C-alpha cells in the first residue's frame, strides 16, 4: 500500500465511508462525521500510520482531503 492509499484508508476507517464515496472531495463539515471530534480522530489515525506528530497550526489548517496531502508532504511523506 503506498502513502496515498494509506491516507485514503484513514478517511475510510475513521468515517466508515463506503466504496462509492468521493474521498477527493472530502471537506471538514461537509463529510459525514468530520466534525471537531472526528477531526481529532482523523489526525491521530494519520499520526499513528505515518509516525508523525502534527503541529497545532497544521491541525487547524487541515480542512480538506486536498489540504491533508499538502500537510503530509510538509512532514516529508511522499505522496
Amino acid at each position: 500500500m503506498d502513502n496515498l492509499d494509506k491516507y485514503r484508508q484513514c478517511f475510510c476507517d475513521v468515517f466508515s465511508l463506503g466504496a462509492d464515496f468521493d474521498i477527493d472531495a472530502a471537506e471538514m463539515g461537509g463529510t459525514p462525521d468530520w466534525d471537531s471530534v472526528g477531526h481529532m480522530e482523523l489526525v491521530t489515525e494519520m499520526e499513528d500510520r505515518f509516525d508523525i506528530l502534527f503541529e497545532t497550526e497544521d491541525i487547524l489548517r487541515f480542512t480538506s482531503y486536498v489540504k491533508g496531502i499538502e500537510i503530509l508532504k510538509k512532514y516529508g511523506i511522499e505522496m
Partner: protein
Amino acid sequence: MDKGWLLGGKVCLVTGTSRGIGQEIAERFAKAGGFVYAGARREGSLEDWAASVNASAAGKVSPIYFDMTDTAAVKQAIVQIKKEQGMLEVLVNNAGVVHNGALGMVPMEKVREMFEVNVFGLLELSQLVVTRLMMKQKRGSIVNIASIVGVEGSRGQVAYSASKGAVVALTKSMAQELAPYQIRVNAVAPGMVDTGRLQVEIREEYRDNVPPIGMGRLGSTGDIADACLYFASDMASYTTGQVMVVGGGYDTQSRALYNIRYQ
C-alpha cells in the same frame, strides 16, 4: 489504609518529580499499582530514586526527561509514551516555578518564567495528552497542582498567585470541555507544605516563625500526594472541575496577620 491497588495497572505521567511534592506523588502512585512516568528536566537525575522505589512498589516508576518549556521535547515525550504504552490514563501537572515578591518587586522576566512553566507548559502538555491519547481512549484523569494562593491570593506573591489562579481557571474550563469524553480534570491546591524550599523561606523571610495553621503543623508532601491519588483513582470517577484545598485549616486572615507581622 491499604492503597495498594487504587491505580492498579493505570499508566500515569507526573511532571516535576525531581524532588518534593512531585516525587512523593510519583512514588505514591507507583505504590498504588500505577505505571508512572516520572518527568524531570535533568537527564539521569531520577535513576537511583526510581530503582529504590521499584524495589518495593506494586507498580513502577519509569523516568522520562524533558523540559516543560521545550515544545519539541514535550512532544517527544508524548510520542514515547504513546509508542510504549498506547495510552495514558492519568496526568499530574506538577512542574512549577516559584518566585515570590511584592507587586513592585517582581521582575517581569520572573513573571514570564513562571507563566511559561506554570501555565503555558501545563496547557501545552495537557493539549497533547488530551488530543493524542485521552480523547481517543475516552477516559482519563488530569490533576493540576494549583496553590492555596491561587484561590485566595497572597500578599507578597502577586505573580505566583496569578499563575496559580490561571491553573484554577483552566482546570474548571478543561473539565467542562472534556466531561463528554469521560476525561476528568481537577486541581489540588496545597497550603504550606514542608518542603526544602519552604524551610528556607520560613528561615529567611519569616525569621523562623512557623505560620499559623489551624491543625498546628505544616502539610506533608504525602498529604498532597493522597489528594492527587484520590482524584487520579476511580474513587473520584464522578468528580470533575473541583479544586481541593489541602491546607490544614490555614485561613486567609491569620496568614495576612502573619505576613504583616513577620515579613
